[in-house]
């Protein structure tokens, strides 16, 4: 049965067409992946389905009947449930309160918390989704938060579950758990729509895949009949190299040294503990870890945005521990911040201003900015780093995420740095842009720059980094040149890899 059918759905935001005459059929009981780059219109399409947006044109058929879903309330009533990319949870309320809000069990006109707790417990046992019923959201792990989101949807008796990039925030182990849950849901007859831009996940979990590009459906294929390469080509519209070519490099002297770096937080808690890192010329050193384990703090310390509690940071033989950020940058530090909108860009400024940001002194004569020089320089940077835009006078918020990131990277790599601090350089960026960014980082490596790559993407670390350090709860728990993916996943989750198990893992890998 076609449980959902989109018929020529069009959704516009101003002049921008986010969904262009989308036709799509979802069958009952399948796991259907919506694959596409950022800005391809996947989430928009699902928001149309869930009643968060109203499409300008087209019809949605639910269980083979035409349906007008104009608000989420109605969508919920029709058995739809959406697990959003950014969790829709209230930090200060308990898991149970979050799950029942809007559909509370009642007793004498008041909320019956006892019954609510029982109901939540029942569903959570039923689907093996363990949650603590009385814990506040702010005190539970990201994986558990996601389980709360799923429970929210199941509590409302959803038959069709929409997952919007659910793996973006999870550790590899949590991803495995999620996939087990998805299979379980499918076994119980639920229909699942899975939004993602990751090829590997799509191949792993889906029955069928629909690829979207620039608001249009490129095609729907059975997962068993396709390959990651074909999907990537459909997504990007051209051949994509999924594996980067890394050449051997001449590793030179130490450029950055972090010695016994420690950082304590507001409540005297240790955020970073005795961190030691050294990075040499022509080398990419990776920091692996689940986000929230001290990566941000480490990034801030090295960039000079945060005062260290103890330890030293040495760049090119000079102690920079107490030197302000601006001067660090002048001495050869480049910083690709993990949060591009918060730290990398001024979103209401135009592109040109953003490109000279931090480097504006080089474009100043007698105290005035030299517009001509700036424009010339910016054009060069934008061309080299493939930032696509209408004009230099566009503001940054008109760019897609991938282009914003390329802009930041272009700015940071164009100043001939000695050391590059790249934090989550491909976060929220699509396959095409990832490839581009990776190649640029490797080019920098070839030019004998030292690079510290902080990333939550294992693939990225494994393919780019020469050495990897694993950070867990503010501490470097492991450093080696080569890791397997499983090994990294376990270390990131704070687990030690037992000796015997390691052999087993290696064997399994060899057999694959």
């Amino acid at each position, binding site marked *: 049965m076609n449980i959902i059918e989109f018929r020529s759905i069009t959704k516009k935001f101003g002049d921008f067409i986010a969904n262009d005459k989308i036709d799509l059929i979802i069958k009952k009981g399948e796991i259907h992946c919506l694959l596409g780059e950022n800005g391809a219109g996947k989430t928009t399409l699902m928001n149309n389905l869930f009643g968060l947006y109203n499409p300008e044109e087209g019809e949605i058929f639910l269980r083979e009947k035409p349906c007008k879903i104009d608000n989420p309330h109605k969508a919920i009533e029709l058995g739809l449930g959406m697990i959003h990319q950014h969790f829709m949870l209230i930090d200060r309320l308990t898991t149970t309160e979050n799950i029942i*809000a809007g559909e509370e069990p009642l007793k004498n*006109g008041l909320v019956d918390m006892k019954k609510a707790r029982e109901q939540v417990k029942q569903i959570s046992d039923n689907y093996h989704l363990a949650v603590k019923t009385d814990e506040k959201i702010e005190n539970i792990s990201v994986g558990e938060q996601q389980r709360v989101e799923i429970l929210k949807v199941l509590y409302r008796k959803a038959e069709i579950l929409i997952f919007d990039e659910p793996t973006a925030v999870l550790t590899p182990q949590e991803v495995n758990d999620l996939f087990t849950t998805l299979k379980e849901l499918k076994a119980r007859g639920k229909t699942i729509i899975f939004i993602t831009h990751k090829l590997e996940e799509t191949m792993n979990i889906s029955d069928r895949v629909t690829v979207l590009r620039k608001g249009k459906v490129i095609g729907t294929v059975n997962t068993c009949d396709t390959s990651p390469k074909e999907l990537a080509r459909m997504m990007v519209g051209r051949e994509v190299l999924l594996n980067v070519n890394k050449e051997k490099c001449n590793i030179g002297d130490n450029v950055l040294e972090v010695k016994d770096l420690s950082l304590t937080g507001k409540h005297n808690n240790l955020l970073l503990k005795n961190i030691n890192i050294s990075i040499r010329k022509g080398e990419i050193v990776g920091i692996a870890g689940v986000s929230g384990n001290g990566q941000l703090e480490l990034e801030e310390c090295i960039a000079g945005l945060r005062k260290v509690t103890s330890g030293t940071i040495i760049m090119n033989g000079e102690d920079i521990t107490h030197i302000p950020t601006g001067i660090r940058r002048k001495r050869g530090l480049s910083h690709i911040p993990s949060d591009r909108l918060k730290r990398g860009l001024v979103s209401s400024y135009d592109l040109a201003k953003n490109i000279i940001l931090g480097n504006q002194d080089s474009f100043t004569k007698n105290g005035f900015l030299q517009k001509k020089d700036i424009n010339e320089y910016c054009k060069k940077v934008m061309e080299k780093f493939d930032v696509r835009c209408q004009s230099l006078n566009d503001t940054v918020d008109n760019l897609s995420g991938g282009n914003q990131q390329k802009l930041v990277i272009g700015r940071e790599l164009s100043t001939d740095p000695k050391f590059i601090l790249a934090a989550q350089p491909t976060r929220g960026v699509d396959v095409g842009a990832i490839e581009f960014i990776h190649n640029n980082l490797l080019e920098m490596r070839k030019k004998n720059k030292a690079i510290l790559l902080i990333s939550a993407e294992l693939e990225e670390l494994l393919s780019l980094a020469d050495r990897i350090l694993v950070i867990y709860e503010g501490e470097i728990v492991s450093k080696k040149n080569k890791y397997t993916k499983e090994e990294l996943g376990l270390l990131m989750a704070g687990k030690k890899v037992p000796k015997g198990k390691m052999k087993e893992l290696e064997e399994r890998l060899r057999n694959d």
Partner: protein
Amino acid sequence: MHEILDVIFNINTFSAAIRISVPLVFAAIGGVFSERAGIINLGLEGMLLAGAFAGVLGSYLTGNPYIGVLFAIICGAFIGFIFALFTIKFEANHVVAGVGLNILLLGITTWLMQILWGSRGTSVNVTGLNEITIPVLSSIPVLGKLFGSHNILVYLMFIVVIISWIILFKTPFGLRLRVIGEHQEAADTLGIKIRKIQYTSLIFSGILCGLGGAYLSLGHLNWFSMNMSAGRGYMALAANIFGGWNPLGAFGASYLFAYTDALQMRMQALNLNVPNEIIQMIPYILTILVLAGAMIRSRPPAGLGKHYKTNR
């Protein structure tokens, strides 16, 4: 020194503080309901003032102070609705809309006073609310003095404090309201009717301010004067913050402010060798100290002051 201690622990000071606290408590709980819905409400000040005016007007027209209270309720509800319209529908900046409302209502009440009673300073005297003595309670020594004899709005205040707490923390409406104040988009995806709850909450906020205002004018003065609220709305907003956006906390904070005010008045009567101006400063200094302390640990609703726009 002995005299000062005597005033501090005097039952009359505590009793006076109850009277002084009434408008603050009503407005502060009004603030709780508004801010829990995500809307910063500086308009409390103007709503109190309008309530005070409407109360006197009702009593003046009918001779019945209870009709005056009804006038204040209707007036408060109406202004709450208007404020909601501006902040929710037209997405005005909450602070600007609140301050604008206050200036507007100060102007309107003064102007209407001029038209109705020919004076910009004070209105004519009207019938005020009489005190109700509760038979058994009033004869118990300490409690009787504190709670035994008040007008109806004081008793209503205690009821409102408790009921508001129940509404906020025990009912579906309250849970939904708290979700909205924290994260409107999440509320939307839960199928909660955000607008309906926000409007209801702001109208309720207006009604509470109307009651607080009615107490100001009909409680014991029995007339209206220009700018009668005199900053109590702002103090109430502070009490709401200090009270952690909780009706019980708002009551406690309002009572603390009222107590220092009562203390200050009584200390002036003592003829200490301190200028009165210094003594008059006590409540305000305390407010600043308390708020400075409270601000550090207070945590407003996460969605406070934000606009949420659907794409529907």
